């Protein structure tokens, strides 16, 4: 097959890197031009914005031109990279990644705007948006490149490099611009994820040496391959490999990979890094962490574990579903007991990501589409929730749920937006969260009846903790301490309104997103469904 190549994804991925270079040049030029600190800060902010928005525009072009019905990998950019190890530079999107790439572009733009100091009191020089701005912006852009890359890379080695690339800026962004316990949180995040990456690295190398000879994109012969599509074609071969320490090869590799990705999801019991990271991270970083980084976990499972190690995936089906249900119910219970608003939202992320695992495990079209749509929806809703937590933290300088009360009297707009986001998150029909959760539950039900029912009971707990939070923070008598708080400013509107609008629009009309991914996802789970005897849908 002759692939038509396009550099669109490459441009999209590396445009932010141009911004990093530009910020570097700006810093170097500073003594020459005699720029003030203020000017450099503003320049860095402007450059970040100017290199993020083109990526957003390119992602729009990609969405417009992506042929959802055709499925398959599109927008391919494929060329040999490191010949010694048969590593290629292979970028492309299919129905699974196209939504994630769009999400990355959108949430990155939101995060950059949320990093502006507009509306932050002038005397608050310690605010993260005023400290070491060029460094912050450069790291943010580097992170963006990494995230785009992870979702576009189809060469395993490239994927791994970019996966690690994401880790580094995140570590510094939390560790330098974070809250009081930032160092603890940053190190915890970094080491936890890195521990997973090691497993992934080992698995990747194992698969590489187990792969059979093939050719690179330019026709050169290659003894082994990192090409994920070709690895998937060779899935049967991995079943014949010699056992590792007496355990079946594919299962060992599968479990290693799965843990690497499960840490990112994060899946119970590997989730405890998340609340700490979220609580300490500055708002835009929480937004990116919840909106995009968590999605890398299930994305990796669907990109690696599912197509490359199908036998082991079948073997682990029940385990994934059970862990999904535990995530949903357990994290929801933990949410109820939280006192810090941001921690509550972090745990609610854990709970909602459980739906992704449950839907994935079912191997039904509804389940898998629901799972990926849930990734997308969670990527819209949880950034909004973290922005909401940021709004109140910027004003009151604390996030104790019990410490507020009656805020809706003076902040009606903020209350309305919060209410809507809470409702979307608790799965109110008519908003986007409902569609994906309903799809997941519908899809999972014929396969795991009891697990699904247990998971569905999560909707009760979710409603309880959100309404309790609503009541404690916004309703009741106004706490006089906060009588002077201002309602939303334009920066906050600019970040929150698009997300809220998407919640409503995609709740009533989800097909634009579902249509993008349905064919790809359904062909992904079709072999499994055939094996389990559950072939649903055309």
């Amino acid at each position, binding site marked *: 097959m002759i692939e038509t190549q396009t550099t669109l994804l490459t441009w999209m991925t590396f445009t932010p890197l141009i911004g990093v270079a530009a910020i570097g040049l700006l810093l170097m030029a500073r003594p020459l031009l005699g720029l003030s600190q203020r000017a450099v800060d503003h320049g860095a902010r402007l450059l970040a914005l100017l290199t993020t928005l083109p990526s957003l525009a390119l992602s729009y072009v990609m969405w417009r031109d992506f042929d959802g019905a055709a499925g398959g990998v599109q927008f391919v950019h494929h060329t040999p990279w490191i010949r010694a190890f048969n590593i290629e530079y292979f970028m492309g999107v299919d129905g699974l990644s196209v939504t994630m790439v769009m999400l990355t572009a959108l949430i990155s733009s939101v995060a950059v705007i949320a990093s502006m100091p507009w509306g932050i009191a002038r005397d608050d020089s310690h605010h993260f948006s005023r400290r070491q701005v060029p460094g912050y912006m450069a790291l943010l852009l580097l992170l963006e490149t990494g995230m785009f890359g992870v979702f576009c890379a189809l060469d395993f080695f490239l994927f791994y490099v970019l996966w690690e690339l994401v880790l580094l800026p995140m570590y510094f962004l939390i560790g330098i611009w974070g809250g009081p316990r930032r160092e603890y949180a940053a190190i*915890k995040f970094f080491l*936890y994820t890195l521990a997973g990456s090691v497993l992934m690295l080992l698995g990747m190398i194992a698969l590489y040496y187990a792969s059979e000879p093939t050719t690179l994109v330019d026709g050169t012969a290659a003894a082994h391959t990192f090409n994920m599509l070709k690895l998937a074609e060779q899935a049967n071969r991995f079943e014949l490999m010699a056992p590792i320490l007496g355990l079946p090869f594919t299962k060992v590799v599968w479990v290693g990979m799965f843990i690497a990705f499960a840490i990112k999801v994060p899946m119970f*019991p590997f989730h*405890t*890094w998340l609340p700490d990271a979220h609580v300490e991270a500055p708002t835009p970083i929480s937004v990116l962490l919840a909106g995009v980084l968590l999605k890398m976990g299930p994305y990796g499972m669907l990109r690696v574990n599912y197509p490359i190690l199908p036998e082991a995936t079948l073997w682990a089906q029940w385990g994934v579903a059970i862990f999904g249900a535990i995530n949903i119910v*357990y994290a929801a*219970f*933990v*949410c*109820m*007991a*939280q006192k810090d608003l941001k921690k509550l939202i972090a745990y609610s992320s854990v709970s909602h990501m459980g739906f992704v695992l449950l839907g994935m495990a079912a191997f*039904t*079209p*509804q389940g898998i*589409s629901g799972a990926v749509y849930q990734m997308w929806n969670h990527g819209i809703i949880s950034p909004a929730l973290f922005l909401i937590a940021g709004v109140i933290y910027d004003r009151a300088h604390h996030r104790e749920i019990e410490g507020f009360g*009656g805020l809706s009297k003076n902040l*009606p707009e903020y209350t309305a937006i919060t209410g809507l986001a809470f*409702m979307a998150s608790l799965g*109110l*029909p*008519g908003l986007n969260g409902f*569609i994906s959760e*309903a*799809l997941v*539950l*519908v899809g999972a*039900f*014929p*396969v795991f*009846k009891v697990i*699904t*029912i247990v998971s*569905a*009971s999560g*909707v*009760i*707990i979710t*409603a*309880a903790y959100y*309404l309790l939070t*609503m*009541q404690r923070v*916004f*309703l*009741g*008598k*106004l706490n006089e301490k906060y009588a002077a708080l201002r309602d939303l400013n334009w920066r906050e509107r600019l970040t929150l309104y698009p997300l809220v609008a998407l919640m409503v629009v995609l709740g*009533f*009309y*989800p*097909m634009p997103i*579902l249509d993008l991914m*349905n064919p790809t996802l359904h062909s992904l789970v079709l072999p499994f469904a055939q094996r*389990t*005897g*559950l072939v*649903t*849908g*055309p």
Partner: protein
Amino acid sequence: MESRVLPTNLLAFIPLFPLVGAAINGLFGAHLQRAFGKKAIGLVGVALPWAAFVFAVLAVAQLWREPEGTTLVHRVYGWIGVGFLSVEVAFALDRLSAMMVLVVTFVGSLIHVYSLGYMAEDKAFWRFFSYLNLFLFAMLVLVLADNVLLMFVGWEGVGLCSYLLIGFWYEDLANARAGAKAFVVNRIGDFGFLVGFFILFWGLGGAFTETGYHIGSGYSLAFRDLPALVATAGDKTLWGLDLFTWVGILFFVGATGKSAQIPLYVWLPDAMAGPTPVSALIHAATMVTAGVFLVARMNFLYAHSPLAMTIVAMVGAATALFAATIGVFQYDIKKVLAYSTVSQLGYMFVGVGVGAFWAGAYHLLTHAFFKAALFLGAGSVILAMHHEQDMRKMGGLGKVMPVTRWTYWLACVAISGFPIASGFFSKDEILWQAFNTNALLVPGWLPWLLGFAAAGLTSFYMWRSYFMTFTGPLAKIEGHGHGRGHGHQDAAPREQPAVITGVLVVLAAGAVLASLIGLPMLWTGHAPWLEHFLAPTFAAAEGLPKTFTGHEAHRLEWLLMLASTAVATIGLGLAWWLYRGRDNPVPAQLAARFPGTHRVVFNKYFVDEAYQRSFVWGFMSTSRLSAWFDQHILDALVNLVAALTRLFAALDGLIDAYVVDGMVNTVGNGVRASGRGLRQLQTGRIPQYLAVVVAGAVMLVVLARFIVDVYT
């Protein structure tokens, strides 16, 4: 009956109008109110529901012209399509939804008008109308939905609006709590609804078997497709029970949440924290009947499952009696009406539970009128009393509020079941059908007996509220200025303006006139008009077995009718005797005579407290336990791993310093020592060096010579 689908493009407008109203008032209401005053808000908020009513009438008129069994369907767009699951945003109008849509838009619009008067003084006027319009939108989606999932949108949507409106005066935390309670309790019901929906979707399409799930054909969620699927899915089972029973019971769980039945009724009395028009519209006339509507909608399913029917009927009957007993002891006028609503909803469930779906629907309709009239009458009283709701502080209002009094009187006649107003006909039909049914697992007289007892109590507590409020010496208003800043100057209660009384008159007239469409066969000689009208929708009910037929049945029906009237009269008489004046000592004496019973019933059987101590406590404990586990076990494990790693690193550091580095240092020290020895050779004397050089050269020559000798 031949069913037939007729495409139309009218139906979507019915819910659209209130949605537009909600959007206008919700997004721009605050500005509009500032710029143009409350009139503009009121105009938008009231005109659009009436527009919806007009369109509803148009749509029903179109349906009317079509033959029986026609369903008007308006497909708007494809909502969700994944695999077999294909859900459209589509609205359908059959005869059941025609009745519902008229009730909802008509009563709803009237209550909007009433709200103009009731909420006139409220600062958040725009917010109220936005919520109220949004509610109407959700309710219309619920009623008109073409499929189960879209219905669920309306189902939860009305729950949301209920939450928002109960907590409308959110500055009082108790109101906010009541709203949250309503929402969460409803969510428990919704959980049942959801699971029922899963079983329905998968069970009717394919089959659950011992070995797993098997794919079938014909997956659909559209209500009009379901009867055919049900008819072909006769022997499918799941976990030992047949499918219809499961779906029926689980949908009924949803219905107990929304329609406030045992065990999930606890939210409705608390919901009275909302403004009175809200109580009238949402918590009496429309939303709470959604559960009844759901069961009626699914009639073809319940008709197949005696167990599900029995559960519905018995829970309904038990709720009817249980709530009535609580209602007897309430002093808050709205609480009386709230428990009365729970009780009346119980009747409706008895109706749909015994297979008399049309009777349940009929009671729904009549109840919408008389209970709305009662609530709005109570609202008028509450306004007159400056937001005093305790009936012990009222009295004699009949003299100063004639319109409110007589409309309340008419509604009381209707609800307590005197054969001149609508409540009699609907309730009596339900009781008779319950008595006569042979489709349940229990004999029909059991639900009848519970309902019959409840009827007496209903008559008693309704007339009690009437006498306590409107007769006796004229009440004085205490402690005005309390509440929401109503700036009345005068202290005496007086009649409310025409915008309020006019609505009362219309509703009271409706409560009487609604009897015309349900006059029993015994009186007219032919089946009630409404039964005939709804028959195509409830075709499944036709084959259900009856105990009595023919003459015997007629005789019994007369007998029961007389008994009902008698028990209603006894209730009225007792209430008249005990509460007509302020001075009858009997109630207090009775309470003193049976202190235990009185305490238990007066405190609503301590159900709320029991729930608080069991479920809520268990829930919160689980939550705290989970959080504790997460922080002190899981996270501690992670930190332990980190600590162990650090310990290992420290050990490793020691080894490195003393073992590995020690070896390196040993080599270095050795080199240094040998160097120290060798430097002794460097004397610095050049002649010595030269001598050594010469000696070396000589040695080299000798050595070379020697080597040459050896090798040659």
